């Protein structure tokens, strides 16, 4: 990681100070990186440790005394419901993405274009709704889900998750729609399209980057969600990753640590990569609606 040796303000001050400053900079960045990634680094080590190695009192938890083993990964995929959690999370994620797009694309366009008093109120409503935490609603929603007969069904999550993703996605898309000049739509109208065709054929293709961000954000959101999944679903077949891993891989006081930590790491790495790619857009969505909305 010597590659990080950098000087914050190049070509300033004498050489010694520059070097010292660069060292301090690198040390600080490395310290934060280590702090942020420490549980994941440990997960990476533990995944391949034998029981004997892992549960040796006083031995270093960071290296291998026995040969690293793939036994626990094998165990995770073949003897646990991990793959069924992955499938449930994927199915839920895809369905929620579809519902979110169907609801938030038109709403965002309306809020971006029709900046009347109604539009403004609805915009504020979206913001307030995004701030309502699941903690406040899980008890009445649990009752509603039970009454609809959706308990232990992924449909309960598909029904409820858009209540978190729609407000956020609507903001994010509002920003994209605002950046598309209305003249383009007007031109489409002159060409004989009606307004709905103009939206479908002209506006939507231009907002594609926004749509991709919404897909990414919504999918990861369903992957993250914990409370609703914990409360609505209690059968192990229907569990998703976020609740299945911590509840099913821990039985009473027995922890299957290697598969447990391996399963966390296997989700963390791809999601981390995706977040890194879409970071700037997600941040834009987080701040745009709040500051300008």
């Amino acid at each position, binding site marked *: 990681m010597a590659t990080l040796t950098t000087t914050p303000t*190049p070509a300033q001050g004498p050489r010694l100070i520059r070097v010292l400053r660069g060292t301090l900079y690198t040390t600080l960045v490395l310290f934060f990186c280590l702090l942020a990634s420490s549980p994941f680094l440990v997960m990476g080590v*533990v995944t391949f440790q034998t029981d004997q190695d892992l549960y040796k009192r006083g031995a270093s938890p960071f290296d291998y005394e026995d040969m690293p083993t793939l036994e626990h990964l094998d165990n995770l995929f073949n003897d646990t419901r991990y793959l069924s959690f992955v499938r449930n999370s994927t199915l839920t994620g895809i369905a929620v993405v579809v519902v979110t797009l169907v609801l938030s694309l038109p709403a965002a366009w309306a809020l971006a274009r029709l900046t009347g008093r109604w539009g403004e109120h609805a915009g504020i409503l979206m913001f307030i709704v995004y701030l309502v935490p699941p903690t406040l609603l899980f008890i009445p929603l649990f009752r509603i889900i039970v009454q609809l007969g959706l308990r232990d069904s992924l449909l309960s999550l598909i029904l409820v998750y858009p209540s978190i993703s729609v407000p956020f996605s609507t903001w994010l898309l509002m920003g994209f729609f605002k950046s598309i000049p209305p003249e383009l739509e007007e031109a489409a109208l002159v060409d004989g399209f009606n307004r709905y065709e103009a939206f479908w054929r002209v506006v939507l293709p231009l907002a594609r980057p926004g749509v991709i961000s919404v897909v990414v954000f919504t999918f990861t959101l369903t992957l993250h969600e914990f409370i609703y999944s914990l409360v609505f679903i209690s059968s192990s077949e229907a569990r998703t990753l976020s609740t299945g*891993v*911590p509840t099913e891989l821990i039985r009473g006081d027995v922890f299957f640590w290697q598969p447990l930590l391996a*399963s966390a790491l296997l989700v963390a790495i791809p999601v981390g990569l995706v977040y890194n790619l879409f970071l700037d857009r997600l941040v834009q969505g987080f701040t745009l609606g709040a500051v300008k909305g």
Partner: protein
Amino acid sequence: MNAIMSRWLDDSRLMGIVFLAPATLYIVLLVGLPFITALLFSVSTATVGDASFNYVGLRNFAHVWQTPAFRDALVNTFSFTVVAQIITIVLANILAQLLTAPLPPRRSARIGMWIARMLLILPWATPLSLSVVGWLWMFDSKYSPIDYILREMALLGPDTVWGPANNLIWLGKPLLAKASIIFVHVWRMTPLATVILMAGLSSIPTDLLDQAEVDGSRYLRTLFQVKLPLVMPIMLISLLFGFIFTFGDLTVVYILTRGGPITHTLTLPMYSFLVGIDGGNLAQGAAVSLFIFPVLLLVAVVLLRTASRAEIR
């Protein structure tokens, strides 16, 4: 007929209503309705088995208020959130300064920064319930890797400052358990706060910073008198998100301690879950979680007001 049709198809106000209606209806049904149901539950005797409506006024709130566990939950929720937010915003400011510093024009520096960014974003990208399982292992009463490092540094074990025990038992002692929970919240929220602040810092016009440099302003002075006041609105937004996520969070406490030892790390969401879902008492569970609402509303209004005022100036 066709003319009416095409007039409708070209009516932009009608289109606005048509486009806004599904999302609005959905939100009214899945957020508005449950919220009202929560209010109704809290003034009734609803349980999981029986949702018939018996009005009991504010008796649930009075009962909950007198429970010592609830008082603990209330105090913990506030102290965890406030302490975690203060630490988060300090760390996030340092990190944002580090990550927005100009890099030397070398390829290795860019690659290094990309890796650093990846590692730094992981706590926020990973589903919280999974990363907290990682922390459960880090805080393990026997095999904690943190304890191992402390032992190697001769801070823990026989004849040491924190000895003579070989383990700290992070989640088994009231103060350490509280500290662990706050730590995990800080760990989780710092990446988000950092990227929000970075967005704010990058939106500062460069000529302003150039002007400060021409005027002879040193690094720290520029930081405190130019940069920080300018990112203040966006810093308040990141505080708002941090506050709401931490205040309403069930995951960290549920997986690490379930509120224990005894009720030392109990929070309002955890207590609401224990009473309402585990205990089946929907009415009192709803009453507990409703205590969250006025606090969140107040914080949201105050922070957003301050943010928009700071922006006008």
